[in-house]
């Protein structure tokens, strides 16, 4: 064993975005010659931590120490000079350049001041051979490679530098199992060379197998670091959750014997994202969609709303088979979607509140071809009153409203159509607690009036507080369904990580 030395240290580091605290007073260190796993829920501060370590973001407060010397990186390339390299989740390759050009994009070999293309190609071949990717042609354009090959090129790019700390952010999620093996081997080799690896993954098994030290983050705080084997899986999951439930939820009604189906989905498939989803929502029921980010929840909602092309499988609305071909068709079939990003998908920010509210409803307020201005004004006033949208006038532009009130406009525009099924994509994201509560009781009232609600949320507490049932998605499938007493944070987290809930309790 090499001597235990800390390469990188964070001291009292905090990071704020506007009024939001992403990292709070974090002390963290990472040893040479180790693989260090970082665990935490969505929004626990993992990504911010990595961005600070790799020089993408400066800390708002506190210090970063490399080899016990304080550093202030202005850019990732400065961090790379000290040997700190990050492989990001979002691929950082330039599709129209060749593999070799991408690998050496920030440190190309030069001759007489010009890039030495043949040397670059030779060096690229060497690096690719090191990660067993001899099949990748250094002259191929990155655009033409498959996703897993691209990810390997990304890794090649990182290890082509003089490495001391390698950060892998979900770097294995796109890889084939053979490549994953290669990466494991590479990590071992790096560890033997006294390189520190920071490993972030939502796959518990992977973290268990690879890492020799683990750190748990929650709500922007560093909760605990420990060596592998010190804690059981169950204890780790408990560390990841343990947070206060802030919002108040409306009481759930007693469970009905049998719900009339409002929406049922059988074996829904779409490209690589949906791999056979089975799900049903009853009338008067709020069904939650849980799981980690990016397990196909968003795609499922978009597929149901007719946005995605080439969706296979069966969808039934009530008793009728339904093929979602376009949002307009869904609107006619009394299906509504509150989309993920209210600023680009939900609202036309430059238009007035009235125009936004009326957009799906012109048929209802028109007499013949012309809009009946009185009826339109009544409709707008009714919607504003019903959702208590706080505004001086319906004619001012919707971008002047607060986030919560903007979201209310998005919801209100659909309610006038009286939809039978409402799909909600993270409707309370970035909204203050008070408005959240209003939206929760609104959702509950909708369900009580016999509508079916499918709610995707990244906030587990919200799923537990709001939903009658939660279907947890993992890798494009519904892997578990929790209701009643089973619906706990522990069970949700365990199901989201696709580990058996028995092992956790």
């Amino acid at each position: 064993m090499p001597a235990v030395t800390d390469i990188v240290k964070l001291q009292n580091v905090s990071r704020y975005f506007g009024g939001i605290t992403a990292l709070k007073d974090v002390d963290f260190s990472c040893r040479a010659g180790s693989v260090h796993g970082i665990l935490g829920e969505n929004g626990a501060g993992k990504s911010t931590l990595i961005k600070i370590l790799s020089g993408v973001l400066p800390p708002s407060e506190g210090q970063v120490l490399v080899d016990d010397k304080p550093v202030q990186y202005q850019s990732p390339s400065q961090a790379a000079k000290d040997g700190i390299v990050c492989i990001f989740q979002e691929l950082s390759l330039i599709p129209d350049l060749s593999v070799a050009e991408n690998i050496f994009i920030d440190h190309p070999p030069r001759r007489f001041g010009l890039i030495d293309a043949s040397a670059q190609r030779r060096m690229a071949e060497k690096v690719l051979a090191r990660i067993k990717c001899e099949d990748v042609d250094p002259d191929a354009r990155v655009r033409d490679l498959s996703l897993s090959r691209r990810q390997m090129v990304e890794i090649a790019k990182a290890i082509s530098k003089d490495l001391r700390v390698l950060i892998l952010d979900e770097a294995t999620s796109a890889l084939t199992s053979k490549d994953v093996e290669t990466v494991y081997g590479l990590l071992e080799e790096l560890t033997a060379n006294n390189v520190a690896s920071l490993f972030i993954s939502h796959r518990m098994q992977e973290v268990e197998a690879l890492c020799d030290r683990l750190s748990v983050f929650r709500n922007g705080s560093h909760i605990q670091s420990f060596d592998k084997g010190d804690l059981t899986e169950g204890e780790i999951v408990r560390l990841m959750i343990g947070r206060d439930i802030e919002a108040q939820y409306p009481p759930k009604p007693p469970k009905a014997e049998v719900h009339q189906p409002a929406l049922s989905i059988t074996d829904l498939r779409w490209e690589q994202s949906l791999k056979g989803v089975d799900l049903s929502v009853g009338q008067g029921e709020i069904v939650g969609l849980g799981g980690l980010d990016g397990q196909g929840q968003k795609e499922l909602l978009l597929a149901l709303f007719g946005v995605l092309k080439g969706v296979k499988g069966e969808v039934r609305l009530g008793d009728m088979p339904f093929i979602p071909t376009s949002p307009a068709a869904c609107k006619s079939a009394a299906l509504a979607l509150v989309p993920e990003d209210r600023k680009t998908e939900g609202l036309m920010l430059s238009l007035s509140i009235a125009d936004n509210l009326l957009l799906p409803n012109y048929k209802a307020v028109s007499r013949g071809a012309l809009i009946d201005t009185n009826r339109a004004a009544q409709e707008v006033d009714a919607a504003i009153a019903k959702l208590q949208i706080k505004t001086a006038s319906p004619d001012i532009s919707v971008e002047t409203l607060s986030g919560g009130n903007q979201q209310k406009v998005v919801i209100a525009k659909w309610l006038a159509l009286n939809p039978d099924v409402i799909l909600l994509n993270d409707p309370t994201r970035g909204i203050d607690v008070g408005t959240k509560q209003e939206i929760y009781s609104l959702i509950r009232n909708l369900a009580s009036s016999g509508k079916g609600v499918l709610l995707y949320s990244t906030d587990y507490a919200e799923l537990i507080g709001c939903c009658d049932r939660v279907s947890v998605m993992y890798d494009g499938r519904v892997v578990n369904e929790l209701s009643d007493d089973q619906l706990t944070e522990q069970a949700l987290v365990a199901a989201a990580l696709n580990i058996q809930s028995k092992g956790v309790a």
Partner: protein
Amino acid sequence: MNTLLSFTPENRPIAIAAAFTLMIILIGTAYTLTTQGTAPMLTPSYLLQQLQIGSFLGLCAAGMMMVILLGHIDLSLPWTLTAAAMMATSVGGPWAIPAGLSVGLIVGLINGFGVSYLRIPSMIFTLGVDSVLRGLMIAHTGGFAPQTEASPLMRYLAADRIMGLPVAVFVWAAVSILITVVLTRTGFGKSIYATGAKESAAYLSGIRTRWVITGAFIASSMCAASAGILLAGYSAKAYQGMGAPFLLPAIAAVVLGGTHILGGRGRYLGTLVGVILIVFLNSVLSIMQMPEAFRQIIYGIVIVGMLLVYGRENKTRL
């Protein structure tokens, strides 16, 4: 609802353009008073003649506004106009006008299909359609000015007068009222604004955005075709290149009238004011007997300069 005179950001460019139009007329009058001692620009006959000339540009701009509100553009205007005029005179008789309008309908359908379904940028697609139309018309006429003549109805609509007012102005007024009603009082018009403001959000609100885009392009081409039919009636026949002088002024009139070039914002009143501004600007420059070279330079500077003024105002709103 916005009243006509409320000074909202939407109305500010309209007010500026109107003030600038008045200024142009005053400058022109001052010029004629000092050089000739008369004020022909303030006589009714001069003003009516300007309206007559303005009606062709007015129709082109009305259609162009529909596509610019979507954030698109219709560069096929010159040869849509010419093709409609040539087809109308070729067919002649009672079917002259329907023939010309159906050229507009077909071109609009093709443009709309290319932009909304094939997703080709409108700037490229309509330019291509313009070139195709030009080729077709040259093949049709053999490259010479067609010998056919406008039908009596076309001449009546373009050059005759009712109660001393040019009939063409009534046509322009009717189209203007129609477009105003469509834009402010129908779901289709509101959908144009919504699609122009944020196409993805409009689509996710259940708007059939492809139909909306196609509809707007049809409106644009039909307006261009109407202008072509009237212009052929005015000059008694169709001729090569009759549409070319209308493209830039039509776009300029829409944009000077305060319609956002990226879509989503704009009032038809502004386009009307923009058309009048451009017509008077041209007219004053010709009264001053400005050489052609300087006329082009001043014309361009005015358009760019006014947009700079608007741009500043927009910046403070962001």
